[in-house]
């Protein structure tokens, strides 16, 4: 649940999501759920000419299982806090 909480702190931020089929989408993180499914608003496809399929989409839902990477602005991440939280969670044996 740690990364669910972590992504919740990023709501409203600009992120880029790379899918497991190499398609990448950018947009504003609207919401995230426990499966790390994400909802994006103001979606733009990276390399839109190559992927005209997604051209008419403004808002979208991405299934967590097809996400390879989520790129986040480094200014919005406190890596020390995240490391501490990771240690705490693993110490609890979860």
């Amino acid at each position, binding site marked *: 649940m740690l990364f669910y909480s972590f992504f919740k702190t990023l709501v409203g931020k600009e992120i880029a999501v790379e*899918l*497991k*089929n*190499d*398609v990448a*989408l950018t947009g504003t993180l609207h919401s995230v759920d426990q499966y790390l*499914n994400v909802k994006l608003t103001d*979606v733009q496809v990276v390399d839109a000419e*190559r*992927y*005209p*399929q*997604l*051209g*008419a*989409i*403004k*808002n*979208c*839902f*991405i*299934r967590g*299982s*097809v996400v390879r990477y989520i790129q986040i602005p480094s200014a919005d991440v406190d890596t020390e806090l995240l490391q501490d939280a990771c240690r705490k969670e693993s110490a609890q044996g979860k």
Partner: protein
Amino acid sequence: MLLVRTHRGCLLPLREGLLKRFAPISRHVLVFYQGNLKGYDHTINLVLEGCKERIYSQSRGVEQARETGTYSSMVVQVQLGLYICRGDNIAVIGEVDEVEDASKDLSRIRAEPLKPVTH
């Protein structure tokens, strides 16, 4: 609603039929379904009403399932009706900007095949 799916099993019978009738279509295609979202559950299984299928390829224009039941040389028009799609096949669900979508000339769109989702 628009639903993007990678090239996978459960729709093959339909696509085999299309391939027989309209031979020179690449097998590596992306399948799109467009319809009204009637329902879903926590695994993102979807129920789509008035569903249309779009097949993108490099060699010809978009093949789109339409309500009319007639077809031209470029656009295959098949109405799928009510469709239930299993969640694990789903990659992206997007809200379609219908004005922008309608302004596109589908018969001119060429798209490189998308890679399948590899887990």
